[in-house]
């Protein structure tokens, strides 16, 4: 096993685990903003309980999002020191902006939101959640700016073998950015909506006492998921044009791809410049899942007179469909990332020049260690989430009144 393959495997593993959590974070925080706003505006206890129940699931999910995100950030320096050496001047900027301007504030706000129940005024508390959501979207934007630059390097010039930034606006208007950002955000909303619909469906199937509460969440989740699957499809297909133009080798051959390969062979020497087939196979499956989830629209008419709940089988469908958007999200990233092989920065920096000079033994130990660590933590996290989801909204720890005995199942009164 060579260092390059091990480093790529580690990147793929960490990124995939990371994305499974951030996609839920981004989707749920949007729904939470809606729920808490509804609570503050209408003062209905039901919305407070929904905010607490879904807020707790959101916070549990967030834990692994941070943990894997920190590994991601360090991985660039640990395993890909060539990346920072040759293109760090350009690629580093959006990452630095993301951590300082977005993630830093997101975490600070979230800490205050968790511990601010019953302590801050309701308006301030709600504003904190808005802060969390806005900075989460800002994070997604800057990360996609950085990723799009790797897909299609723009706004730079190479002097002494090192890329220097010349035009930052080119990074922001990158053709591989716009539709991809919309696609990712829509996918996050889809995952959030599906999760909310599926968990509520589970409660309605088990006939837990909180019927009205889970019915509301089911409706919110299903409508969100149906609207966002259409956006996912739209932004997804809209990408083929611009991405095919800037990355001709991504979706298989063609005259453009042949010309580019010939040019690379002249500049970088002989080599295999076509991405592995794995990428396009995954893409096919992702599109298949995307079309299947489009049938969510067929469930919407069943919301009339709660037929969706009375018939029961649509609830089972929602429950079993829950893994699909997650699988599609991973396949989508594989198509995007594996599709730019053998490049770290497309047409500019090959992966074998970007990998760190550490030995294969150290890299293997790091791969096994972090995969086991993050894998175990991810599974533990999902088990905890599933348990809390199954426990229901009787009395989540989040937002519990301090003097409140924990075993008391009474619903919380609204706090003025």
């Amino acid at each position, binding site marked *: 096993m060579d260092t390059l393959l091990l480093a790529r495997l580690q990147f793929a593993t960490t990124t995939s685990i990371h994305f499974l959590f951030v996609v839920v974070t981004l989707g749920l925080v949007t729904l939470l903003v809606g729920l808490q706003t509804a609570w503050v505006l209408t003062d209905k206890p039901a919305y407070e309980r929904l905010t607490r129940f879904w807020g707790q699931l959101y916070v549990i999910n967030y834990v692994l999002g941070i943990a894997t995100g920190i590994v991601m950030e360090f991985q660039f320096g640990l395993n890909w020191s060539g990346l920072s050496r040759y293109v*760090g001047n350009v690629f580093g900027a959006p990452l630095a902006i993301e951590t*300082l301007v977005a993630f830093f504030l997101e975490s600070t706000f979230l800490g*205050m939101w968790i511990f601010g129940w019953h302590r801050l005024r309701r308006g301030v508390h709600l504003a904190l959640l808005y802060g969390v959501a806005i900075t989460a979207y800002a994070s997604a934007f800057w990360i996609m700016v950085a990723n799009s630059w790797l897909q299609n390097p723009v706004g730079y010039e190479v002097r002494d073998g090192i890329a220097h930034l010349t035009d930052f606006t080119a990074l922001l208007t990158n053709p591989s950015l716009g539709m991809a950002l919309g696609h990712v955000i829509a996918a996050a909303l889809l995952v959030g909506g599906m999760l909310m619909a599926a968990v509520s469906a589970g409660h309605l199937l088990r006939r837990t006492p909180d019927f009205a509460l889970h019915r509301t969440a089911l409706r919110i989740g299903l409508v969100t998921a149906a609207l966002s699957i259409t956006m996912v499809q739209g932004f997804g297909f809209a990408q083929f044009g611009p991405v095919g133009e800037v990355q001709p080798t991504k979706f298989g051959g063609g005259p453009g791809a042949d010309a580019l390969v010939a040019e690379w062979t002249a500049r970088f020497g002989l080599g295999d410049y076509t991405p592995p087939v794995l990428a396009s196979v995954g893409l096919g499956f992702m599109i298949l899942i995307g079309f299947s989830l489009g049938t969510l629209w067929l469930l919407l008419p069943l919301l009339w007179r709660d037929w969706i709940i009375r018939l029961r089988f649509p609830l089972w469908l929602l429950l079993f469909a829950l893994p699909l958007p997650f699988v599609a999200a991973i396949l989508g990233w594989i198509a995007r990332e594996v599709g730019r092989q053998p490049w770290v920065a497309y047409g500019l920096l090959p992966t074998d020049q970007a990998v760190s000079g550490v030995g294969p033994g150290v890299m293997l130990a790091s791969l096994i*260690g972090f995969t086991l660590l993050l894998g175990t933590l991810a599974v533990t996290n999902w088990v905890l989430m599933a348990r809390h989801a199954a426990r229901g909204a009787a009395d989540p*720890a989040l937002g519990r009144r301090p*003097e409140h005995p924990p075993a008391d199942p009474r619903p919380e009164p609204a706090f003025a």
Partner: protein
Amino acid sequence: MELAWYALLGAFFATYLVLGGYDYGVGLLLARRTDPARRRAALNAVGPFFLGNEVWLVAAVGLLFGAFPLLEGELLAGLYPAVVGALAGVILVTVGVQLRSRPAGDRARATWDRVVVVGSLLAALGWGAVLAGMLQGVPLHADGHVAGVSHLFTPFVAAAGLAVVALVAAHGATFLALRLPAADAEPTARTARRLVPVALAAVGTAAVLGLLSDRVRAAVQRPAVGVLLLGLLVAALLAARVALARRRPGLAFAATAIALAVPVALVGATLWPYALVSTVDAGASLTVADAAASGPTLRLLGWLTVPLLPALLGFQAMCWWVFRGRTDGRAPVYW
């Protein structure tokens, strides 16, 4: 220009060591607190600050990547085992603290507490080793390649790692003496008072081993500054001890905070103008100016991030202000 960015980077990392340091110190002290209620009280004393503390590390590394891309690659890859150890520790603490109270059973919680203790130990050891590794130089070749990892395993690195462990333990105990309800703070203050001399001894051992190490002597560019800052570190610890004895936990906390920030300044200032000194090829040593991103990148970062720094600090200050004072049983309990 580069100096300003290097100072900003140092400030972020030092703030992380100060704020994250008490997270890890409290984490280490869980090992001594066997009663579940007291453990939970300690974790919720950190409570609202925890996420805002850890994020300084993320910001510091973001700044490192944006403003010093060359240093980022060579520093992290060159000190691979130390960075990986610290990283694993940070992850264990982050996950352990946030998830430990989600299971209801005492046994599951005790297991998560062990995760927090091990994570805190690894994180403190790791960051100590990273700072010591910088101070003793790495076998950096002219192509930016650092050969092997065995260069890291020296007595000085081990002693520095242990010194940071002792420092964060004393810092964490002082934080608890400041923040826990008055009745519970008294025994914690006694623990802190006992931990300060341990930290002094550990720092002394690391300093002696550093002075005896040829590599450290060769790498250090400004020994006078190093001795001066070491003196400041010792003075801060002595001040913490006096303040604890006089029941002034606020002053003691300020002193232990200085003691955790000084090592960063010490490494940065004694190596200046270098950021990373090579032990094999003097010409391959990386100066701060060479490691910095080129002009347009730094200007862009300056325009986009520096105007926002007051907002970052303001929201952190808001968090400290909202949750100031001792925990009193009226604050929400979540961790």
